[in-house]
């Protein structure tokens, strides 16, 4: 068959056959390939493309519109790219040649079922004889996975670079850094490139043993986080404490999130210091509290010592008076005993002489002379005087001995230090004792009138300390009266001591007919060391102590009524039921 003679039909059949062969060839290609004609539209879609887009051969035969293959707006973009390319090539008056580098574009494509995928297109133009594009051929590759990986990688980079923490990605096999974020580069002072040649140990001040890290990696499941603390160093040698969180990304890579915890450490340090100083303050507080407790105990001791001291002081003051009180009965008891001794001698003389008379009488030999002698003896021995004086003398002697005994007993009871515990006490008796020991202080200036309730209830109290209170008030009364009666030429004053009970209280009133308390001194009466007495007459502690004893120690009350020129009355009220103390 001569070549020339080929008919149009023959040629057409040949062309169709070629076309089919070409299409078959295209179908065999591993790539998806599209052929588009400027006028006809989609002219071929190879099998890979059909597979990629989910179409069947029948779909292709029925015809597929090109825009259908693109995601939203993507077709317009593709048209714009092509048009601009054509326009550009015309403007440059350059002809498109297949040898020119084929352009790669990415598009979002649409499958038949409507789902989208990322595709990379590699397009070459079909040119006519004048070099004008009449169509195009495009190879399409599904790059969704690559895009996702890229996106993931992009996201990671973005996250890494936007993180305020230092993020290191490193290989698990050789510990080399594969990626370090900008924050870390800036902070540590190494460039990305420098980091890429370094291993994780190079930034450690005290690198852990490789084996340890290896073991850590091996035993940690993928996706798990390990937290460690350590010290890192910068390129310039500066070191800083770090908190590291390792994330085992997969078997290949690990991600380390590192945070400089200098400030945190400092804050912890500060906190520790604050805690320590707080503890120190606390200890100080405890100590000063203990000191205060000791002080309070000491004060209490001092207070009772003060009461005791004041008591001793007043006993000292009283001692002279008591000596005086005792000296007087001792004097007359002694005198009387000697007198009675003499009296006995004289009585014996009279008896002896009388015996002579009796004997003579028995023998009926009584003589006038003997009677005269007896009478003379009776006269000489002043028997009449003796018989008058002896009973008086005996009475007074017995009284004197009783007087001394009373004083000594009162002294003893008054000055008894007590047990320190409250004991049920007969207040009348306590007052009696106090009045007795103080007798020498008041007897020259005042009559003392007692008005005691006979069956006064016993009062739970510290008798020694209450005695002191009574004494202080009685001494004050005597002194107030002494200031009025002066040398006593105008007569004595009166001190009245009375007791009574009312309800749960026992009331003791001690009043005097003294000067009264001046108005300006009234508010200071119970103040320690306040005194209106001249130097040597008082230390100003008597009523302060009295107030302390009555109010604080007994839960009672101590008040006074006073009137200038009329006198003062102190009223002590004590509870019969001891307050809890």
């Amino acid at each position, binding site marked *: 068959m001569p070549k020339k003679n080929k008919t149009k039909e023959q040629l057409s059949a040949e062309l169709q056959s070629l076309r089919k062969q070409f299409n078959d060839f295209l179908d065999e290609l591993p790539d998806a390939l599209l052929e588009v004609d400027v006028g006809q539209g989609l002219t071929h879609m190879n099998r890979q493309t059909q597979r990629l887009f989910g179409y069947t051969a029948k779909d292709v035969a029925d015809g597929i519109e090109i825009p259908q293959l693109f995601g939203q707006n993507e077709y317009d973009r593709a048209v714009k790219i092509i048009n601009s390319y054509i326009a550009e090539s015309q403007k440059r008056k350059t002809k498109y040649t297949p040898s020119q580098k084929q352009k790669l574009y990415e598009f979002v494509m649409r499958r038949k079922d409507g789902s989208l995928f990322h595709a990379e297109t590699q397009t070459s133009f079909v040119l006519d004889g004048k070099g004008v594009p009449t169509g195009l051929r495009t190879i399409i590759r599904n790059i969704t996975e690559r895009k996702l990986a890229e996106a993931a990688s992009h996201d990671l980079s973005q996250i890494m670079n936007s993180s305020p923490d230092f993020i290191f990605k490193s290989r698990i096999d050789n510990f080399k850094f594969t990626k370090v974020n900008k924050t870390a580069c800036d902070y540590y002072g190494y460039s990305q490139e420098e980091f890429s040649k370094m291993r994780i140990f190079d930034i450690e001040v005290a690198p852990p043993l490789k084996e340890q890290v290896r073991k850590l990696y091996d035993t940690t499941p993928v996706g798990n986080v390990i937290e460690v603390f350590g010290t890192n160093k910068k390129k310039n040698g500066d070191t800083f404490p770090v908190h590291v969180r390792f994330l085992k990304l997969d078997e290949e890579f690990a991600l380390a999130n590192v945070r400089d915890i200098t400030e945190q450490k400092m804050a912890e340090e500060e906190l520790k210091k604050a805690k320590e100083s707080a503890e120190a303050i606390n200890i100080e507080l405890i100590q000063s509290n203990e000191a205060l407790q000791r002080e309070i105990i000491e004060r209490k001791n001092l207070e009772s010592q003060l009461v005791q001291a004041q008591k001793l002081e007043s006993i000292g003051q009283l001692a002279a008076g008591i*000596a005086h009180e005792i*000296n007087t009965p001792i*004097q007359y008891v*002694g*005198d009387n005993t000697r007198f009675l001794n003499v009296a006995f001698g004289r009585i014996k003389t009279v008896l002896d002489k009388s015996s002579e008379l009796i004997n003579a009488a028995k023998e009926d030999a009584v003589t006038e002379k003997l009677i005269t002698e007896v009478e003379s003896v009776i006269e000489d021995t002043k028997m009449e*005087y003796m018989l008058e004086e002896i009973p008086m003398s005996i009475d*007074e002697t017995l009284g004197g001995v009783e007087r001394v005994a009373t004083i000594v007993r009162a002294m003893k009871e008054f000055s008894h230090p007590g047990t320190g515990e409250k004991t049920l006490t007969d207040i009348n008796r306590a007052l009696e004792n106090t009045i007795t020991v103080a007798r020498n202080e008041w*007897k020259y200036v005042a009559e003392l009138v007692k008005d005691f309730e006979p069956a006064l209830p016993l009062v739970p109290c510290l008798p020694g300390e209450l005695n002191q209170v009574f004494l202080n008030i009685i001494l004050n009364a005597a002194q107030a009266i002494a200031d009025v009666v002066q040398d*006593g030429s105008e007569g004595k004053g009166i001190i009245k001591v009375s007791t009574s009970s009312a309800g749960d209280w026992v009331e003791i009133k001690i009043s005097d007919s003294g000067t009264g308390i001046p108005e300006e001194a009234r508010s200071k009466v119970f103040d320690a060391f306040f005194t209106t007495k001249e130097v040597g007459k008082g230390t100003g502690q008597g009523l302060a102590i009295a107030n302390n004893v009555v109010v604080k120690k007994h839960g009672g009350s101590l008040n006074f009524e006073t009137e200038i020129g009329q006198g003062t009355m102190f009223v002590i009220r004590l509870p019969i039921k001891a307050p809890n103390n």
Partner: protein
Amino acid sequence: MSKILIIEDVEEARNSIRRTLEMDGYDVITAPEGKKGLNLIQENILDLVITDIFMPEMEGLETIRRIVKSKPNLPVIVITGSIELSFLEVGLQFGAVSGLYKPFTPEKLLSAVTKALE
């Protein structure tokens, strides 16, 4: 017989001293305090006064002062139950011829009296 005035506020003491002196033969009158004592001095011819110091109404030292003033030749013996030395000294300064602290023995008293009466 010498006449002695005892001025002493405590009755028992007054009586016992009186007895001591009476037993020794003295004529004794007594007063319980200075004022009454001074009255007795005016009413009686006395050879000696024995006075206590601490007494109501008029105490001893003032009494001595007044006796010495009104009867300069009347000797006074001052006695006291006080243990404070100063009072006797003041009494002696005021003109008492001698002083005795209680308790004193009858012998001491009588010796002082004898001496005072010489």
